[in-house]
């Protein structure tokens, strides 16, 4: 099956005063894959995601998401793309159902449809038992899963997940990672996963991109990158070894 390109950027650039946060970035993501988006802090990953969502104006170059320019068709792109920001926040005085109701409202969802979808996504992320608890009392892992539920509510074609496992305990992180994998397989949602947990990224992603200082220094499957960096060998390299090799070179 030939998969279609769902995200494509050409020479995408973003300057902040003198600093070049994203430097002529060109990469693509195919439909149905999990793309691991790696890089040190401040490499420009979040800025790239914001430009793909049309929330930030690029200084140069262009991007296409689901065949649309996110700057001109911001509303349409945001309808198809679910974004889970790093350190996502919630209104602490609402409970999970009320939070999801607000998101449904913002997505112009009919009340009956929303009610059904809300109980469905709560089931999917495993929060059905805590649905009436105030979000302010949630643990970090529960908040992350609620964030994913909010993203799922609008039936996205693509999910941008920015550090979804940051600060979670191993069990919580594993649950989130498994959830992402099952969403990708069951619902055919394309996932752009930015993370520092290389082991987890290696476990679920089809291809990875390594971004350092605003540039994409590598973009391929993990095996291909391993071969490229360490030569042909019998043993398989971990993503961590590959990442460190790239990092030391720059």
């Amino acid at each position, binding site marked *: 099956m030939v998969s279609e390109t769902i995200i494509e950027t050409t020479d995408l650039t973003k300057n902040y005063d003198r600093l070049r946060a994203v430097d002529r970035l060109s990469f693509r993501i195919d439909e149905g894959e999990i793309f691991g988006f790696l890089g040190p802090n401040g490499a420009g990953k*979040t800025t790239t995601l*914001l430009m793909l*969502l049309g*929330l*930030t104006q690029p200084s140069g170059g262009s991007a296409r998401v689901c065949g649309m320019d996110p700057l001109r068709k*911001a*509303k*349409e792109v*945001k*309808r198809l793309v679910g*974004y889970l*920001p790093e*350190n*996502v*926040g*919630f*209104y*602490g005085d609402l409970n999970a159902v009320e939070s999801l109701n*607000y*998101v449904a*409202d*913002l*997505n*112009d969802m009919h009340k009956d449809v929303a009610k059904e979808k809300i109980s469905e996504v709560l089931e999917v992320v495993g929060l059905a038992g805590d649905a009436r608890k105030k979000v302010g009392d949630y643990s970090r892992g529960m908040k992350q899963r609620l964030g994913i539920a*909010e993203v799922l509510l*609008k039936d996205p074609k693509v999910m941008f997940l920015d550090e979804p496992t940051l600060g979670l305990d191993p069990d919580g992180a594993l649950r989130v990672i498994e959830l992402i994998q099952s969403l990708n397989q069951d619902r055919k949602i394309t996932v752009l996963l930015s993370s520092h947990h290389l082991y987890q990224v290696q476990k679920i992603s089809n291809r990875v991109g390594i971004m350092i200082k605003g540039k994409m220094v590598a973009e391929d499957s993990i095996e291909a990158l391993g071969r490229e960096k360490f030569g042909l060998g019998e043993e398989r390299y971990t993503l961590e070894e590959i990442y460190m090799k790239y990092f030391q070179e720059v």
Partner: protein
Amino acid sequence: MTGLLAIYRKELADHFSSYRFIILFALIAMVSFITSYMAGMNLKENLEGVAKPKFVFLMLFSTPGALFSMVQFVSFFGPLIGLVLGFDSINRERAHGTLVKLVSQPIYRDAVINGKFFAGVTTITILLVSIVLVISGFGLTILGVVPGIEEIWRLFVYLVISIFYISFWLGVSILFSISFKGIATSALASVALWIFLSFFVSMGASVLANTVAPVDQKGGTGPEMVIKNTRIKEGVSLFSPMVLYSSATSTIVNPMQKTTSSLILMGPMERISASRFQNPLSLGQSIVVVYPHVVALVAITLICFAISYIIFMIQEIRM
């Protein structure tokens, strides 16, 4: 449009369920009650056995109770309502990380700021209208006078001007909540601006007027100098929204007041005729007198909102 409605509903619900609104409402309701009760009692006492003047009902709002009248109370306390409703509207969302989530939903970005502003204006409207209605009902029983059509219209105009006045301060506080990251900073900045514009501008106006056109207190100054002094003082103090508002509303609520100027020079004949024929202005004429004030008030409200709108639209939202 749908995004706007969703945000509007959420903000309105937030306002009406927040403690700060309930406290504010209780405070204002209490002070208005006491003020209008005392004003009513004073009126009743003074009007005992005298032929009833016209527009008794409006006097309920313009007669001082203990310290101030209802109109004066709104002019200095009203801004606080606007400030309290708006000072953390944007930066609280930013601090909690909900703003980026909000704008990544399929809505236009201006829906956020429009929804917040209109929800604030609606809250202000409901608050003011309910207080004026409660005082009116209260006044009916104390005074035993039914308001005439003209009085009702005047109260309506008064309400409209008041809503714009308080909305101006709402706009100021939203502007500060967009420009400052810290919630405490924006709260302090808006209170500082309120104090400056409401109290220090009038002080500065008289200092400036006395420097440019000094007036001898003993009466040695010619009338030209006195006029010049007053003109400067009044001109400068118009920079204060509070002065704009109180001149406008006191003329609207008191039909006997025929000018917003504090200095009236009259010849002896004019003085006699003015004191013998005290006729109230019609509502249309009252509005003509304060028309510039009202236009200025509406204009600064819109300008303030427009500035916040522009800043918010070009601002980058990362958090």
